[in-house]
Structure formats: C-alpha cells, structure tokens
C-alpha cells in the first residue's frame, strides 16, 4: 500500500498540488485523472522522489519516503518500476540491453540468468524476436511494452505509469491497459496510473483519484464515476459530445 498525506508542491508562486491525500491499494489499478495542468504528473513525480514535496509525506508500506536519505531511497527505488509517457527507453541500447540495465545494476545474477529474465519479461508483454532491435526501430505500442518489460524486470512492488496509452490508437491503448492490469494482479503490485483517457478510466479504474487545480476533488471507482454529480468531474468525463449523448445531456 502507498499513502500520500497532505502533499503540497508549488513552483515559484504557482501552487500545483494543494494538500493532496490519498491511499493507493496493493493489487489494484489506482488511477490519477484530471485535465492537463491539474497536477497529475507532478503528484507521481513527488511520490517517486523526482520532485521534492514542499509539505506532506509519502509512505511506501509505512516507510516514510520523504524523510529518507539517498541510500534509503535507493533501496525503495529498487522496488519501483516506472513506465514513462514517451517510454524513455535508452536510445543507444537495444531492447535486450534496456531490460538488462536494471538487472546488471542491481543483481549479481549470471549473464544466462539475466538473459532468461529478459526473455521472460519480453514474453510477458507479448513481444518476441525484438531483443536486438533498437527503440527507434519499434512502433509506439512496442516501445510501451518494452517499457513495461523493463519496469517489471526487477519484480517491483510498485508500478507507476505516466499516461501509458498516450500517442497510441485506442485498440493498442486498451491492450496496454489490460497488460498493466494483468501484471498488477499477477504480481500483486501497487499500481498508479496517470491518465486522462476515458477508455482507460472505464476499463481499469478500480480506484480513481480526480485532481482539479491541484486539489483532490473526487475519489471513487469506474462505476461510481458515471453516477457522480460532481460538476468539475462531469465536465471532465463528459467533455466529448458522444459522452454527453451517452449521459443524456
């Protein structure tokens, strides 16, 4: 379980996160949704320590991440996998080397054991025979899958996904969502997905945190979101004409 308590973050005089608290449970997909500029990505970057919070705490299974020193954080980070919006694969390394990277950095396994793990992770994300290709030679969907394979290489307890299906067609986007969902259940990870894609919300939203202007505005699941009368959330969910028609506006 991952808990954020009263997190605030501002850049100069702009308050990006304002006293946000939430609990993200293990073994389920936790979605952070909101319009562009609502603070979703900043929240995730604060949780993983890429940005320092101004106030509040982040607890990974009761361990206070905000007060940890570099070495203690490093230990927690070895339990974290992250899929970035643009996949963030290392361009100069092949697919195999990308997934090998965390294994070489943190394990003392033999080369054969590491390669077995690489192949297992690639198979898990339904990719085969791409070991020696470079990221530039892969499609967007394949890059995301390699990103997931790299993120799960060290068997993480916590998985963070920043807009995993941005730039993908709806079908591939749903495939990626389903893959994240399957992996989360299979490895009982605490998964946090930042998205503004309504397909993802409806498909995988077991616990949804809606951010608006840096504040937590609403929390619920994909069934409750359709019944809500929260104005800001309705403006977000029913932004398209087809969704308005669906709602009966």
């Amino acid at each position, binding site marked *: 379980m991952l808990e954020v308590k009263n997190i605030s973050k501002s850049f100069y005089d702009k308050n990006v996160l304002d006293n946000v608290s939430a609990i993200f449970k293990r073994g389920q997909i936790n979605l952070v949704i909101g319009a562009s500029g609502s603070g979703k990505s900043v929240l995730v970057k604060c949780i993983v320590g890429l940005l320092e919070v101004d106030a509040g705490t982040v607890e990974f299974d009761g361990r206070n991440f905000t007060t940890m020193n570099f070495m203690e954080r490093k230990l927690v980070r*070895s339990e974290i996998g*992250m899929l970035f919006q643009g996949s963030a694969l290392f*361009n100069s390394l092949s697919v195999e080397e990308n997934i090998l990277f*965390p294994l070489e950095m943190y394990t003392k396994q033999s080369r054969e054991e590491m390669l077995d793990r690489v192949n297992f992770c690639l198979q898990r994300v339904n990719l085969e025979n791409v070991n020696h290709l470079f990221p530039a030679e892969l499609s967007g969907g394949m890059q995301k899958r390699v990103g997931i394979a790299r993120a799960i290489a060290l068997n993480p307890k916590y998985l963070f996904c920043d807009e995993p299906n941005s730039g993908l067609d709806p079908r591939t986007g749903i495939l990626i969502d389903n893959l994240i969902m399957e992996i989360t259940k299979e490895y009982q990870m605490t998964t946090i997905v930042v998205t503004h894609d309504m397909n993802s919300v409806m498909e995988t939203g077991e616990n949804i945190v809606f951010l608006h202007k840096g504040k937590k505005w609403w929390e619920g699941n994909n069934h409750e979101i359709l019944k809500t009368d929260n104005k800001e959330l309705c403006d977000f969910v029913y932004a398209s004409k087809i969704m308005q028609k669906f709602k009966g506006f």
Partner: protein
Amino acid sequence: MVTALHSIGEYFLLLSRVFKKPDNWKLYRRQILVEMTTLGLGSMGLIAIISFFMGAVVTIQTASNIDSPLIPDYAIGFATRQSFILELAPTVMCLILAGKIGSNIASEIGTMRITEQIDALEIMGVNSASYLILPKIIAALLIVPVIIIYSMFLGVMGGWFVSAYSDFTTMDKYLLGIRWNFTMFSIVYALIKTLFFAFIITSVPAFFGYFTRGGSIEIGRSSTKSVVYSSICILIVNYILTQLLLI
C-alpha cells in the same frame, strides 16, 4: 552576474555528484570504452586532415615570411614544430574538439533529459550525473592526449610534405629544424594543458546538456552554449597554464 554565479555553483554541485562512488564499476568500464570509441576514434579523421594541412600551411607561411639571411633555414622546421607542439595541437585542436565532441555531448544528454531517460535512470536509483558524465570525462582524459600526440605528429608531417614536394625549404633543413633544441618538457607541457582541456570539453557540455529544459529548440541552444563556454574556458585556462608552466 547573479545568474553566472548561480550557473557556476550548479556546475560544481553537478561535479560533486559526478565524482561520487559509482554503483557498478563493470557498467562504467564498458561505458568508458564506448565513449573512448565515440569521442576518440570518431574525431581521428577530422583531426588528421586539419593537422596535416595546418602543418603544411604553417611551414609555407614561415618560409615565405623569413627573408633575413641572419635567420637559418632550419628555423622553418623549428617554428613548425614549436608552434604545433606548444599551441596548435593542444589548444587549437581542443577548440575544434570542443565544437565536435562538446555539441555531441550536450545534445546527447539534453535529448536524454527531455525524453525522460534521465528520470528513468533516477527512478532506478542510479546516480544519473555520475553514470552519464563520469565515463565521458575519464574517456576524454585517456583518449584526447592520444589524439593530440597524433595531431602533433601529423602537423610536423604536413611540414615535411611541403619540404619534400615544394621549393620553400629542403627536406634536410626541415628535418634538422624539427630536431633542433628539442626538449621533452614541450610535450609534457602540451599534455598537461590537454588534460585540463579534455576535462573542460566534456564537463562543460555535459553540464549544459544535463540542465536542458523544454524541447528540441533548447537542445540546440544548450549545444551552442556548450561550445561557446567550453571554448572560452579553454582560452582562459590556456592563458593561466601558460603563465604557470612557462615562468
């Protein structure tokens, strides 16, 4: 002024992160070899062409400007050797490398920054500054002196080519000139300067690349800034070292 001081402070803070104990030497060793190939071998052709023709031109210029009968003919070879070993090879070649290697490093690290590859390293608990910059600095400290010695040799060879295939001087007098009053300290002096310059042409562009913010336009700006500032640093350090070493 405040911005400049702030940047200098950031540069030294970055260096303090770069020189922290590496997480995994095995990965660093491999990276150093890769960087030596990229930074070193990739520059050999350019340096060879520039050095050879510059050596030839220095010889022709010296020969055509010496018309006093009091100056011996072997002074042409001597002047070519001295100018190449003391200044042209270490300083001018490093300025050229600052353009080639520097822009390469700044754009590579800058691209990694804006495509979140550096964030990915940080999430994995890797000291990204050390992993990305230290191998480049070590590789440059190892390979740039080799490039500079190679440049010295080719510069002198350029002069020899002129002496062999033109009427500006004779080969005997040129060969006498390049051996006349030679002291090993000239090479040591050039290599000391080279080590400082090698550090500058990797660390300054790495700094600009590492702190790139925004998109592709900013990568271009970082790349340009890195070349400008590393060139300025080389010239200032060259002046200081020349004062200190040749007192």
